[in-house]
């Protein structure tokens, strides 16, 4: 093939493209390197995990860490984590689902109201939602601690659901209100003209159409709930998975490989959820959370 002489702009453009792809690779490393290390460790024996230099692929891969957790047994190296991790994952799931349900029911109706109706105090309601969104959870933990203690709801999944609603409900309302605002009012009106009540219009017409909004809100709320650490640490005795992972060293005979497996199990649900509903989540994030 004849050698081509390339003009300078073409060369420049190629160099830029090469640089961009190099940056893309660096970006992928930034995201994946910690995960590679985590997943890799979770398939190792404790002995292999301390090898110097480290193995980037397990030489003797083992499922021991996972099976110990899933079967509730003592893990390789003697870590007694099994029971606790599975129960905590279950509790995290329960708290997440209950929080989502409470959010969609309370937030869905309120957002619809704020999008469609004006009433005495509707502005105040909206501002109170915005204000509630700005109050950092950590700033009101003392009151929750005393109140839940007096109510006997310390270390209770329902206690956590109540507390989590305090910082998720404003997000839900903002995301959903934003979504409802984008739906033409003619939809509601047509339903009303056809003889539906206002509640029926909301339930049978708006709710199905607003599904993407609900999915976005549900995902955001579940992710917040699943990863919440501060309240779970202070208001429960390692009820959900975050404090269990954080307290591994203090409470179990420790080994990193078992913690790695538990961490993998804890990180798969939220990552999967976000990937599956990527489009909805990103839109909800941009429209609701950033405002």
């Amino acid at each position: 093939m004849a050698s081509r002489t390339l003009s300078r702009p073409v060369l420049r453009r190629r160099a830029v493209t090469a640089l961009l792809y190099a940056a893309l690779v660096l970006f992928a490393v930034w995201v994946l390197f910690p995960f590679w290390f985590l997943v890799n460790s979770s398939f190792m024996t404790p002995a292999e995990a301390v090898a110097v230099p480290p193995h980037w692929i397990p030489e003797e891969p083992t499922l021991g860490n996972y099976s110990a957790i899933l079967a509730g047994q003592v893990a390789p190296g003697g870590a007694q984590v099994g029971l606790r991790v599975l129960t905590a994952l279950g509790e995290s799931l329960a708290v997440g689902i209950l929080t989502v349900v409470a959010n969609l029911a309370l937030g869905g109706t309120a957002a619809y109201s704020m999008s469609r109706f004006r009433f005495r105090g509707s502005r105040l309601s909206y501002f109170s939602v915005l204000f509630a969104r700005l109050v950092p959870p950590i700033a009101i933990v003392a009151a929750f601690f005393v109140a839940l203690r007096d109510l006997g709801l310390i270390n209770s999944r329902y206690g956590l659901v109540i507390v989590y609603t305090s910082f998720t409900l404003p997000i839900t309302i903002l995301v959903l209100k934003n979504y409802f605002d984008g739906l033409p009012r003619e939809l509601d009106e047509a339903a009303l003209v056809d003889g539906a009540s206002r509640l029926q219009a909301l339930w049978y017409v708006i709710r199905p159409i607003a599904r993407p909004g609900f999915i976005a809100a549900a995902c955001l709320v579940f992710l917040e709930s699943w990863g919440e650490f501060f309240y779970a640490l202070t208001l429960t005795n390692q009820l959900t998975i975050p404090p269990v992972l954080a307290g591994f060293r203090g409470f179990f005979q420790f080994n990193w490989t078992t913690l790695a497996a538990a961490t993998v199990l804890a990180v798969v649900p939220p990552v999967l959820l976000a990937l599956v509903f990527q489009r909805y989540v990103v839109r909800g994030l941009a429209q609701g959370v950033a405002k």
Partner: protein
Amino acid sequence: MTTPRRETTAARTKAPPQAGSRLSDRQFGLVLALPAIISLVLVVGIPGIQTLIYSFQRVPLSDDPATFVGTDNYGKVLGDESFVESLVVTLQYTAGYVLLATVLGLLFALLLDQPLRGRGIARALLIIPWATPVIIAGVMWKWLIDPQVGGLNAVLFEIGVIEDYKPFLADREWALVFTILAAAWHQASFSALLFLASLQTLPNEIVEAAKVDGATAWQRFRGVVFPWIRPMLLVVVIINVIYGVLQFDTVWVMTQGGPGDATTLLPILLYRQLFIFSDIGAGSALAVMLGVVAVLVSSIALILLGRDDPLAA
């Protein structure tokens, strides 16, 4: 915002209240919103006020009534040496965190906005650190940089950056750096997702027109792209500042505030006041100060963004 007003009047003139519903539109709207509003009063309003009250009280652990102590708790918190130290650490932490999370986020967004092959996959990758709970980011980074089991030491050793495996978290400065890095790893993705959403609304014609006019990439960024995303930049910076000041998770799991007090951020101090020293009064005073700062910072941002009337947005 003209639409809802128009719609309500339209609805009112059009519709005599349907059978079975004796509520006017106004009442119906209120009834729909009420459960959520009452909930927010119960789980945000009252705890907020209660915390404010605690901050002026001495709260015994037993059932004995709390006693009013004026501003003693605030004096106690502000007069404590550890508060000043913690404030300095928090400011350092926040500065590093905001810078890293925002700049990396912007770079990622600009990169993933380019028409590159594999961009779809890369955008899916982008969401992963954000979907990873901060606490888990802390766990991963803690062990990634561990001298015994971690991989980072080996990498840095191989490429000659360090001469020996280092227990980074035992070093005051490295501990701060890596607790920042772990949290920023999560947050840079968040920033990037928001920047990317903003970039995608930038009309392509504008960029193309600038190209036709012979603007260089840097000129296009300065003259077109940057002005376009500036409102979003403000949002992202504000959110990052607040998350930085309130950061707890990564620090707790990686260093618990140590070594010494090197990473004792204000939220860690708050935790200690409330749950180690069981001083609900002093803890609440600190909490109120943190809360007021957070609310003030974001309110100022809302005003700067011209959203002081959000209903008109």
